[in-house]
Structures are given as C-alpha cells and as structure tokens.
C-alpha cells in the first residue's frame, strides 16, 4: 500500500505572552490509503492541534507550524501557497468537527452548505449539486433528504447534524477525513451510530480516516492503528491490539486502567491517572510523563526516543520491559 499522508517531525508552537507552548513537538506518523488511525490522549496534549496543522488551520497568530513536513500524496502541504492549500481543504482532505451543534452555519440552509462545497471544488451546476446533496444526505441516513435540504440547522438534532457534517466531509470524495472528536458532544447511543456510519462509509469509499479522540472504546473498535499522545509527543504507536493488550508505555497503561471495562469485576475501582498534565511552556529535556509515572527512574531525566518494541509497535519509554512485566503480573 502506498502512503497517503506522511507526517514527519511536525512541530506546532503557540507564541503566547506566557511563553512558547509546544503544543505539537516533533510527531511523525503515516497514514495509508483507506486506513483508520486513532490519535488518543487527554485534553491539551496537542492531538487537535496536530490535526489542524495538517490543513494549516491553526490560528496564526499565536500558533505556527515551526518545523517538520506533512506530505500528502508526495506534496508537502506546508509548502503550498494559500490557494493551493485551499484546494486541498474539503476536496482531498475533509474535516469533521467536534461540535455538531455549532459546526453548521445557523443562517444557511443545509442544502446551501452542502452544495457550496460541491460548486466550489467540483464546479458543479446548481442542479447537479442539489442532486448530489440529496444523494449524500440519503447516504448518511437522513430521511426525506429532498425536503431536509431546504431546512436550517436548528431543525436538526445533534446526531443528525453530525450526519450532515459527515455528508459534507464526503461530498467531494476526499482521500482523507480528519474527525476531531466526532462523537464527544453526542449522547452515547448516537455515538455508536455515528461511528458505525463513519466506519461503514470510509470503508465503502476507501477513505482514510484520522480519528482524534479521548475515548479508548472507539480506539479498540474502529482503529487500525493508534497513536497515543502526551504533552505534544507521540509516546506509543501500534495496532489497536498492541495498545490494548500489550501496552509498553506507562501512560498508555494508566489510560487503560482509568477506563471501566466489562471484563473486570464491577467492584474493581478505577485507577485515575494521578496528577495534572504538564505545563507545555515549561518542559525540561526529560520524559514529560515522569512526574506522574510510577515507573520513573533516574534515566527518565533524559528524553526516551520512540523506539520499536515489536513489529509495528513503538514506544517512547526507557522502562518498557518493567511496564510489560507489571502487566503480566497483573493479569
């Protein structure tokens, strides 16, 4: 399989009055065609910023991509002119945002918002675009799409709006969809529907998907590969199998322990990750997770590299063996 997206040592920093926030600090990963990648991490770890950087949507000022490259089908997106990147946005790479309630413009009809992208990128006529919009709404499971086209976002519930967002993302047959916490704002029953829909449609049309989430349940079920982020860096990367059953980084382990699981006794207490995420303006040279880590040793004061610990499985920790060992004992 060819590489669709190659991100290499991407660095996005925010220049604030409090100092430089290294929101994304040298992350690298690839996305194959048709693959689903999950980016996991707690709030403020840089996962959304890393996704926004791909489409160059980070607000500047204060944010700026200061290093690295993002190659999409061989072209470095960071080197494109403003017009060229505009042509990529929505057409080759589409985005689904977190807030379905506010991601649609309240004063424009659903049809208008769907067809606008089609007219812009595929230069369709009004009639063609309308027909395609109806088709898309049907595809994402909205009943009576022709009538719905003339309605405004406030006529739609949250879950339906997210369906519309997915339809919008799909409308130009993109190669890649970036979904930034697509289900966070929805209630649990709808979450599953939306995820199934996304999985189904991306598989059907061969679209690669980057899902940004803090929900490990999504990861286990839908992602081919998982990148765990902490403090602007990827600290573990592997298949969902690897991450779930063979975590090598103490942070991944801590994340998994903080989630309720059906295969554990109901009385078992959850283990929250202790402490606070680090202040991204004040990182020292060492492992950022060190202050919260139960496995920390003196060597952690120097930064561990993201090294292979198995086939297709990377982790950035000096003590992976101890971590893996502790898991064995626990189970």
């Amino acid at each position, binding site marked *: 399989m060819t590489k669709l997206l190659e991100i290499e040592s991407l660095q996005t920093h925010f220049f604030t009055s409090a100092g430089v926030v290294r929101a994304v600090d040298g992350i690298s990963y690839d996305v194959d065609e048709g693959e689903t990648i999950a980016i996991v991490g707690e709030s403020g770890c840089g996962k959304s910023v890393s996704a926004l950087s791909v489409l160059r949507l980070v607000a500047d000022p204060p944010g700026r991509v200061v290093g690295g490259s993002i190659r999409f089908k061989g072209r470095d997106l960071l080197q494109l002119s403003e017009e060229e990147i505009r042509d990529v946005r*929505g057409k080759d790479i*589409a985005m689904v945002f977190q807030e379905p309630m506010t*991601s649609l413009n309240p004063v424009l009809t659903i049809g208008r918002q769907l067809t606008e992208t089609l007219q812009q990128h595929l230069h369709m006529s009004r009639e063609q675009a309308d027909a395609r919009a109806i088709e898309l709404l049907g595809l994402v*499971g909205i009943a009576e799409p022709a009538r719905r086209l003339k309605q405004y976002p406030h006529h739609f519930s949250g879950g339906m709006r997210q369906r519309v967002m997915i339809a919008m993302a799909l409308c130009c047959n993109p190669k890649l969809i970036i979904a930034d916490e697509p289900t966070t704002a929805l209630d649990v029953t709808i979450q599953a529907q939306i995820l199934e829909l996304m999985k189904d449609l991306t598989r059907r049309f061969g679209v690669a998907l980057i899902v940004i989430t803090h929900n490990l349940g999504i990861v286990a079920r839908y992602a081919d590969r998982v990148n765990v982020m902490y403090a602007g860096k990827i600290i573990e990367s592997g298949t969902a199998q690897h991450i779930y059953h063979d975590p090598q980084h103490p942070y991944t382990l801590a994340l998994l322990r903080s989630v309720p699981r059906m295969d554990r006794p109901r009385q078992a207490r959850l283990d929250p990750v202790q402490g606070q995420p680090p202040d991204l303006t004040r990182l020292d040279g060492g492992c950022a997770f060190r202050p919260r880590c139960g496995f920390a040793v003196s060597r952690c004061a120097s930064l561990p590299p993201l090294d292979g610990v198995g086939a297709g499985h990377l982790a950035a920790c000096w003590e992976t063996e101890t971590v893996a060992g502790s898991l064995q004992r626990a189970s």
Partner: protein
Amino acid sequence: MTVAADVRTEIELPDRSETANWWSRVRQFVRRNPLGAAGAIVIIVMFIMAALADFIAPYNPVANAFDRLHQPPSLENWFGTDQFGRDVFSRIVYGARTALLVGFVSSFIGASIGLVLGVGSAYFGGRTDLIFQRILDVFMAFPLIIMALAVISIFGTGAQNVIIAITIPFIPRCARVVRSSALAIREMPYIDAARANGFSHSRIILRHMVPNVMAPFLIMITAFVGQAILLEASLSYLGLGVQEPTPAWGLMLQGGAEEYAESAPWIAIFPGIAISLAVFGFSLFGDAVRDELDPKLRSQ
C-alpha cells in the same frame, strides 16, 4: 447498513398559510410594541407622501405666487404659504422625497460599506484589525455634523454630495458595531468548518459571516435613516445641503426661521414638525426592530 438506514424527523409544526402568518405577526408586533408601530405608521405615511407626491400635493412646490405671500394656514393653503407664495404643505410633501432619498441612500450605502469593512476587520484580526480600528478611531473622533461639513467643503453642495457627506461618517460607526458582533461569529466552529472546506476569505466573509450579523446591521440602518434625515436638514439649514428651489425640510426651516419667525411662524413650524416626526418615527421604529431581533428582550 442498518444504522444508517433511517432517522425519523422530529415533530413538525402545522403549515399555516403565508398571509395569515404575516398578519398575525404584524398584530403581535403592534401589541408587543405599540410605540414601534406608531413609528412605523409615521414612516409609512412618509413613504406614501414621497411616492404619491404628485397626487397628494395640491400645488406645484416650486411655483412662486407673488400675489399670495405669507398667507396663514387656510382651507386653500393648509399650512400657509412662504415668502415666495409657495404652498408649504406641497413643499413638505415633496420634501419627504428628498428626506427619504438622502436618508435611505446614504444610510444604506454607509452601513453596507461599514458592514463589509467591519466583518473583514474582525475576520482577519490581529494587526490588520488593529490598524483598521485606529483609522476608524480617527474618523469617529469627528462628530457626525463636523465630518459631513468637512466632506461638503471638499466636494461642494448639491443633493449627490450631501449623500456622500452623510455616507462617509456612517461607515466607521457601522463598522465598529458590526465588528464587535463579527468577532464572536469568527470564533464559531462553523467558520473553522468553512475554512476547512477550502473557501476563500471573501466567500467566508460575505456568505458565512455577513448573514450572521444582519440583526445589528438592520438596527443600524433604521437608526441611521433618522440621523441622516436630521443631518440632511441641518446641512440644508446651514445652506450647505440641497439648494433652492428643491423642496427640502431643512431649507424651508431656514428660509422661514430667520426672517419670519414672528410675522409668519407657520413657514418654519410645519417643516420643523415634519423633521421631528420623521426622526422620532425612525428612532422609535429602530428601537422596536432592535427589540424584535434581540431574543433576550423578545420574551418580555
């Protein structure tokens, strides 16, 4: 594909016929906002006067009649005649044309330019916004009338120049108000979504942001029309606006007030009343529009 199969729609409101709906809305508006309705009536009367001036006015507004100078109000000349024997009522009716033309054209153009500039300034933000706002500050530092006077002294008098002179000071005022609403709109996710869809800056500003700031824009326009009418009257009064013999309220007021305030007060009083009523009507209506468009005030 079971999940994506069907999502049924929520409850539907019964379809009411268009006209019945419109009427009930008008009735509601009158009940909720009687003062605004009074303002609306003044505006409607003005419009009728302006549109049907040829049929309403009993005399030619610019025809002198030297045998009927300074006639007090009577059955023939309802509001009397002026120092050239012209019928004051006819001149007021035709004056509504001048007032509405200047008022609407200047406030509409001024507010529209201000709208685009304000939204653009908010959208681009950062340094662009800062520089732009400081330029507007310079314009805002001048009171409306002084600014208009300055423009008149550059371009000269005449109806067209009066419109320009009134339009220019409106631009920064509208831009300022619209910008503050647009700043909030810019942070909405749907603007990010529009950028993620690859739309150009101008498209995002005009198609996605401008419709969202229509409420303050409409309020500004209604408030501006009243101000523009007053401003036009002031300029004409100072002899810098519309020139004789065009019927304009400010001009009539000036012609009457200076020499005939005691001997023939009707020459000045009636145009004065017309100006006051028009400005009052527009500001009442403007307030009502604001209340209507502000959902926070609406429930009360």
